[in-house]
């Protein structure tokens, strides 16, 4: 983990209530796709930092300056304030969380993202493709106006299927409707990676035919393992989503309900 100031390079709206911010600063602590940053939003009253996943990072792990891309949805006061920032600096804790492990992917990994769970899969897809793997992506959104990054994934060379719940674009339905029924065969997959709202993760868990990795979300205090605010139970004992997570292996997940 590293605390440093990042400069806002750009901050634009890319879909309904969804913004993309590009930041310039010290990216040495960013090691893997699926990690997150925790952002301080200066505004007298706001207290906790806002944890947001890393969508892309140039010069990740390198010394000197790099750029960091984050995509966030405006849901409350903090993200609303962020969406209005056009320039200046942000105090950021970077390099948080374990991130996805690409060594387990096999030749044909499948990436499944829902809503603002899509961004971390972009950096992951980039890495997998650079490792010579054939990447398929399923992107799920509620409706057409909320779609983002479909073209960006295509430009990386991934095969992309987009679904919307209301059918206003692409296939109508849920991400699981677009998942191959079999892991074997021409349209099959060797492993999967997913990030999205919990009901989607549960559905993917049931529909998936291989091992895979899930990225979870939870309300966090610190984001770096100090407060135990975001703990969850797993097969192998309790884990902190911010520290031993947010990415967990399929076989260690214990669904609570």
């Amino acid at each position, binding site marked *: 983990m590293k605390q440093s100031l990042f400069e806002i390079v750009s901050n634009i709206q890319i879909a309904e209530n969804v913004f993309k911010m590009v930041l310039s600063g010290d990216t040495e602590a960013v090691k893997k796709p699926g990690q997150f940053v925790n952002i301080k939003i200066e505004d007298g009253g*706001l*207290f*906790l930092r806002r944890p947001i996943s890393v969508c892309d990072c140039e010069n990740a792990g390198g010394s000197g300056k790099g750029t960091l891309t984050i995509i966030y949805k405006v849901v409350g006061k903090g993200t609303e304030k962020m969406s209005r920032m056009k320039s200046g600096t942000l105090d950021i804790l970077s390099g948080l969380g374990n991130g996805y492990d690409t060594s387990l992917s096999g030749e044909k990994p499948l990436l499944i993202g829902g809503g603002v769970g899509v961004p971390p899969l972009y950096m992951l897809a980039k890495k997998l493709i650079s490792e010579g793997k054939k990447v398929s992506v399923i992107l799920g959104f509620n409706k057409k106006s909320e779609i983002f990054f479909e073209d960006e994934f295509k430009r990386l060379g991934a095969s992309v299927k987009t679904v919307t719940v209301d059918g206003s674009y692409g296939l109508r339905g849920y991400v699981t409707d677009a998942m191959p029924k079999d892991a074997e065969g021409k349209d099959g997959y060797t492993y999967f990676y997913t990030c999205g709202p919990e009901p989607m993760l549960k559905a993917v868990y049931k529909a998936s035919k291989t091992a895979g990795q899930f990225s979870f979300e*939870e*309300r966090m205090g610190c984001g770096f393992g100090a*407060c*135990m*605010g975001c703990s969850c139970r797993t097969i192998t004992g309790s884990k902190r989503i911010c520290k031993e997570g947010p990415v967990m292996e399929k076989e260690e997940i214990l669904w*609570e309900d």
Partner: protein
Amino acid sequence: MGRLSVDLCGIELENPIIPASGTFGYGYEFAELYDINILGTFSFKGTTKEERFGNPTPRIAECTAGMINAVGLQNPGVEKVISEELPKLSRCFNKKVMANVSGFSVDDYAYTCERLDSCDQIGWFEVNVSCPNVHGGGMSFGTDPNAAADVTKAVKRVTKKPVIMKLSPNVTDIVSIAKACEDSGADGISLINTLLGMRIDLRTKKPVIANKMGGFSGRAIFPVALRMVYQVSDAVKIPVIGMGGVSSAEDVIEMMLAGASAVEIGAANLVEPYICRDIIEKLPEIMDKYKIDTLKGIIGGAK
């Protein structure tokens, strides 16, 4: 003996800065960030007889200038603290640490303290009779002077180390609880634990916290904490550790003027991981600004 040094129940602290229990784990996470030996000491994660997962999530909520937590004393249990956490800590911290202990019965408190008593790394016990997040334990001992006295006596029987009782602000008369602890042999008082609070999510129209309520901490509670430290330190002869919303070197000085012999820093660690280091570095400059020679010399100076 520097300008910042203070005495805490007979043990000299290089400075009065103590990260508060529950915001600093067992120390080693922060040792990756800076040399934690610069601290006065720190109070480790509240430890109980048995391992605890704590409450269901969500157990964190944002508030204006503060936060609510309902972690509920998640910890690995006293045996693992002794066999795993303390050995790990000894590799990055060579000062005495404060052992924060909680329980669900008088016997629990005594058992856990007795188990930890043989650990040389431990300098003080901070006995939490004020956790708002567990039912049938914690705070119930700190809201009744007789129960607080019983816990104090039971812990004093099993250890010669200084026993500091950590009190809840969720009471009508905190002074009477502090006095009951002092009369039962407590060597110090620390206050305040978090204030019982709540938030409701307008989208779901339900409490944000799964446990509905939790402990409110952060900058917003500083004036309440300061007032209680002032009242308690005026009424007891034993040292008082002040905490609650402390976020700057100025806040530390204010707490000490109110009567605190040392100062704990809690929620601020979670948003500013380097804050304790920064405050220690900043204190001499702020002392100069307000013409303060030594911190020891200002304790209770506002009275």
